[in-house]
């Protein structure tokens, strides 16, 4: 309640108090949230790593990198195959003479596109279906939840493998959907919104009965206004946290699909396919082809999960700043 009090004062500042320097600085929910998040040191480090990764991946075409599919040769025209990390080739080259550094950076594109696209799709679908089911009890709720149960009951990896294998052969799909990361992203998004829908529904069911919603309804607010102004903002925290975790798992599953050869198609570099190739090379002693994409994959997913953990703590309004 104290936060409400602050906000009221903020809207009508007492000029006399302000002149005496006694006015209270308003503290918004956002201030509280960011203060709590900043306290979570690991989450901040993770956010920094992710921001750096995004910038690196977006700026890749303008960076002084070799083309990720180019087979490098030296001045004498000999191909530079399985070169250990050295100056100029900081992470070495693979068995086709391609620059591992450039492939790791471009491989991040596929992973991030899959993670972010699948995450957005899951957030939209899960929120839409969960809120419809939670707000309209009875038949809509029953129908939507049975459908959600059904999607949750599908074995994710076996089905994803089938789709990944078949995707390039489906005749009516556009080319960018068949080969690239977007097809895989849509696939994973459509398969993993179930748990979010359940969580959102549960939030809606409890929020719908709260006094402030009843007050809004009594004041004559429309369904749309109640949902968007009153219920949804209060359900944001589980939506954000769950979506963050979905991004991480989508990246892992895309990597697994690419590792098995059913994900993003070569020559587009992906971390999963690089680990598969690197595993064979590492047996012969060329560890760099395995270690760097592996580290990139683990660090990225780990950062996302740490960020999700930090967001969960920061968004939980029962957790006060003093307590931790």
């Amino acid at each position, binding site marked *: 309640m104290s936060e409400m009090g602050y906000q009221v004062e903020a809207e009508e500042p007492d000029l006399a108090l302000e002149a005496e320097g006694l006015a209270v600085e308003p503290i918004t929910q956002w201030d509280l949230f960011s203060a709590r998040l900043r306290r979570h040191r690991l989450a901040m480090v993770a956010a920094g790593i992710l921001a750096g990764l995004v910038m690196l991946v977006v700026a890749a075409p303008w960076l002084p990198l070799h083309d990720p599919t180019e087979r490098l040769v030296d001045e004498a025209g000999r191909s530079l195959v399985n070169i250990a990390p050295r100056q100029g080739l900081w992470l070495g080259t693979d068995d086709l003479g391609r620059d591992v550094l450039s492939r790791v950076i471009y491989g991040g594109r596929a992973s991030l596109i899959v993670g972010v696209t699948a995450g957005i799709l899951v957030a939209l679908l899960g929120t839409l279906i969960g809120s419809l089911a939670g707000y309209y009890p009875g038949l809509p709720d029953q129908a939507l939840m049975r459908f959600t149960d059904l999607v949750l*009951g599908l074995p994710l990896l076996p*089905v994803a493998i*089938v789709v990944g294998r078949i995707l390039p052969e489906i005749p009516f799909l556009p080319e960018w959907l068949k080969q690239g990361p977007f097809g895989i992203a849509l696939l994973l998004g459509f398969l993993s919104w179930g748990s979010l829908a359940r969580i959102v529904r549960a939030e809606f069911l409890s929020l719908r009965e709260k006094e402030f919603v009843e007050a809004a309804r009594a004041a004559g607010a429309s369904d749309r206004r109640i949902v968007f102004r009153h219920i949804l903002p209060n359900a944001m925290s589980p939506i954000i946290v769950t979506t963050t975790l979905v991004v991480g798992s989508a990246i*892992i599953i895309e990597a697994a699909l690419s590792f098995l050869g059913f994900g993003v198609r070569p020559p587009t570099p992906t971390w999963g396919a690089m680990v598969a190739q690197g595993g064979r090379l590492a047996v012969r002693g060329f560890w760099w082809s395995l270690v760097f994409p592996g580290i990139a994959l683990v660090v990225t997913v780990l950062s996302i999960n740490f960020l999700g953990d930090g967001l969960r703590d920061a968004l939980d309004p029962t957790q006060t700043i003093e307590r931790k």
Partner: protein
Amino acid sequence: MLAYITRRVVYGVVTLLALSVIVFALLQMSGGGPLDRLKLNPRMQPYIQQLTKQWGLDQPVWKQYLTWLRNYVSPCVERSQGCTETIGLHNAIPFVVLAVAAVATVLIVMKVRTYWRAGLILGLWVVALFVAIQNMTIAFDWGISFQGAGPVWDMIFSRVGATFRLGFAALFLALLIGIPLGIYQAIRQYSFFDQLGTTAAFVTFSTPIFVIAIALQLLLALYLEKWTGVKLFYVTGMNSPDYGDMNLLQRLADILQHLTLPALSIALISLAGYSRFQRASMLEVLHSDYLRTAKAKGLPRRKIVVKHALRNALIPIVTLVSLDIAFIVSGAIITESIFGWPGIGRLYINAIQTVDYPVVMSIVMVIGIGIVVMNIVADILYGVMDPRVRYE
């Protein structure tokens, strides 16, 4: 409770039907459909006509699906391409075993009133399922492989044992390490060891299983042998080629040398989840009122932890284990193809590469059935163990 179980079974069947429709429809889009794929394979030429007739491959898709469904659920009555076994009296053994297990379960639920009855039931069913599968001579007409590898039923059931061995070993390892780890972390909350365990769980949880598998292969097999000269583990297959000539002890060692790494790579990820879950569950119990009472009575700490806290803290993990089956199956698909393990997972990857329709369909359905059954078992077990849960 009976109404609840019935409803769950109905939902499960609907889920399985939807799964079969989805995968069937997807497979139809590949390479012009099953008939075109069949024609590509020269080894299958002699069978094309017969298969077309038996499976209606020249019919519209929905008719093909209905034919597939009918064949999939029909037991083999007479010998045919997809059936090498036929119905006889000996087929009854697995059903008798399962019926005995069901009756025993009901008796245990009604008569036994100890905390351990859930474990009793779980153990009972593990043994019953094992015996039932060992004696499973009844077969269903799941067709023959489009790659000419024989009847699908036989292909799958000759590999089930390998996958079960891997899955159970992984589960065993995960429980053996994960539960004590979680309990210890909870008892020493916020200690250095607790923090370390939490961080380690986070890292393993964020690591894809294939990275773990390859890292284990390289570190514990390849480099270990290179640096120390000790060959402790093998990285491919289930047995050595000279397995037949070994004595019992050598065989056991050989099995363990092959099993450890693939089982460990699946177990590491599950174990991270188990230890987190066990820690949370133990902490909740440790902070409960009745434990404070026990402490106030002056009971020794050891007795409080072992006798009062542990029993209740172990309850929730059973459901987690039942639900984990889906993860273990997914893990097995990837791990088996990395370690050349002759199980269902590797068969699945091989079949999907060549889009071997009957094999892919059958394995997806086997996995789906396993997950649906374990979900129902998890729900029932939860109610059996925690009398506060009521089925509606």
